[in-house]
């Protein structure tokens, strides 16, 4: 009889353990599809240990990205200035904020952000880490002009968000940190890797003579010399994710990285953007000063301006640049357009 009592006690104890385990909720891990070229050529994407990708987190991040609830007056979402059909940038020189104010920088396209290995984001490297970058435009008075306390209050009082945060993070208590984590998760899934040139590298497409010539100009140190800052067939990001003064101005009205680091040697330096999807990301440069790719190419060919911090990789500054012929310029443009990823801007996973 005593034995039976012990069995019952043991069984009860076992059941209580079992029910405790069932109570621990674990979101479903998100299977990030790393493109073949990225897997072959690059180191692993940056995914912080304290913010792993989950199905629920990514879905929540996407919902938040497209929701105007994140702006101060609830008129703008992140997608307002980062439109899928424009490779998550917008077509204006300077984007208009929630209160109608104009910024002083061009909206950066958003893709392949998980492969920003140095984790300095924005044109001037202001933010370290994607989670921090997410918050910046939300609270920036010229952009979404939000107040984090007010926004989290709104979210906590919302009829759906507390449940969605519960699913994503195991808590219905919504904080700005969790908002940042969710949006960052979604942003890390935004991948562009299916351009004509990607297919060419995979042996699934051929280049025209002009496109091949353009690639050779891009890779030639005495011609375009674009590869030092913008990657190559071995760095399919088409950016080094570093900051350079590319000879836009003799004097600076915008110090760029220099304003962030306080080091005058960084004045006039801005992030090298990826050259993917240029078809959709005009206007170009940090201040959107160039409307067309022809203007961009002309800048490097004959428009360089000297300043103390100009990158030494900007050659022949005294002659204005590398001096490409009209045919070379046309070929270079033809190559650049092979980095257009049409599938990307039509990807339903990124649509609202």
């Amino acid at each position, binding site marked *: 009889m005593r034995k039976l009592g012990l069995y019952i006690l043991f069984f009860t104890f076992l059941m209580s353990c079992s029910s405790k385990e069932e109570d621990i909720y674990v979101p479903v891990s998100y299977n990030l599809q790393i493109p073949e070229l990225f897997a072959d050529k690059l180191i692993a994407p940056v995914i912080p240990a304290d913010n792993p990708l989950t199905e629920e987190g990514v879905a929540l991040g996407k919902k938040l990205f497209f929701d105007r609830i994140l702006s101060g007056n609830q008129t703008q979402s992140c997608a307002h200035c980062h439109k899928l059909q424009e490779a998550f940038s917008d077509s204006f020189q300077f984007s208009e904020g929630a209160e109608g104010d104009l910024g002083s920088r061009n909206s950066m396209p958003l893709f392949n952000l998980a492969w920003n290995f140095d984790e300095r984001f924005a044109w001037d490297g202001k933010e370290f880490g994607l989670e921090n970058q997410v918050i910046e435009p939300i609270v920036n008075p010229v952009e979404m002009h939000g107040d984090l306390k007010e926004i989290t209050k709104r979210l906590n009082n919302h009829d759906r968000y507390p449940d969605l945060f519960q699913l994503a993070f195991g808590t219905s208590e919504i904080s700005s940190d969790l908002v940042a984590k969710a949006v960052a998760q979604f942003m890390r899934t935004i991948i562009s890797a299916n351009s004509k040139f990607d297919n060419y590298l995979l042996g699934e497409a051929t280049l025209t003579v002009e496109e091949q010539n353009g690639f050779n100009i891009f*890779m030639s*140190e*005495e011609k375009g010399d674009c*590869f030092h800052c913008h990657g190559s067939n071995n760095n399919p990001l088409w950016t080094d994710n570093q900051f350079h003064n590319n000879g836009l101005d003799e004097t600076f009205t915008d110090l760029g990285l220099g304003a962030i680091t306080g080091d005058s040697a960084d004045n006039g330096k801005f992030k090298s953007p990826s050259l993917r999807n240029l078809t959709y990301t005009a206007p170009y440069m940090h201040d959107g000063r160039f409307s067309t790719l022809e203007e961009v190419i002309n800048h490097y060919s004959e428009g360089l301006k000297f300043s103390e911090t100009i990158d*030494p*990789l900007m050659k022949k500054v005294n002659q204005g640049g590398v001096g490409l012929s009209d045919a070379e310029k046309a070929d270079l443009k033809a190559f650049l357009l092979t980095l257009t990823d049409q599938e990307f801007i039509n990807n339903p996973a990124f649509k609202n």
Partner: protein
Amino acid sequence: MRKIIFTLVVFCFTFLACSEDNDVNIETVNVTLKFTQNWDGTAISSSDFNQFKFTNENGDLISIERLRYVVSNTTIGAVANNYQLIDVVENTGAEIVLEGITKGSKSLNFTFGFNDADNLDGIYPDLNSASFNVPEMLGGGYHYMQFDGKYKDTNNADANFNYHAIRAADITDPDNLILQDTSIDIDLGNVEISDNTTIEIQMNVAEWFKNPNTWNLNELNTVLMPNFDAQILMNANGQSVFSLGEITNN
């Protein structure tokens, strides 16, 4: 039967004796190689970059803005490290730790850049991610060094230089490139390893412009990657760039 038993006993003793030998603890230590830079003996730190404060052998005043290079096959005795990118301006990669080194006098060697066998196109993801590649039209593979900055030209105006060391490539006939391995085998001799040891390896940056070829930046400044002869000159000057520095034990 007695013979068999005797043989078995002898075999067991021999086996046990061998086993005892294996149990002898061979003490190993870690050795840290620390790469530093100087200009003719004066240490260079990040605060020295982006300023015209160095004068090369030719008398050109220069400013260093980017300096990163690869060392490979770094070997102490029989222990080797595959390769490492050292970025002086970003202050990354300056230390290589080699583990499991037995104490005693050990040879210390490394290669500046990659020898031909290792300099294969696109195979190192970390170097691809850092955009350290060489275009295929120049033979592919990787830079050995990217050393960029400015110098005061003959008109005392600022001008750019890109002292980029790669495998020399004669591209006269693009369909038949002539490539020459210009990596540099550095032999720093024998070093006494006693405890966990830190060994400084010094790069005298001034040597790149000095010995045996006095480098004239007014003549050789940019577009040196496709310049076969310039790469040969760099290789010659690089032979005396590295030396053994301080050795400390703890």
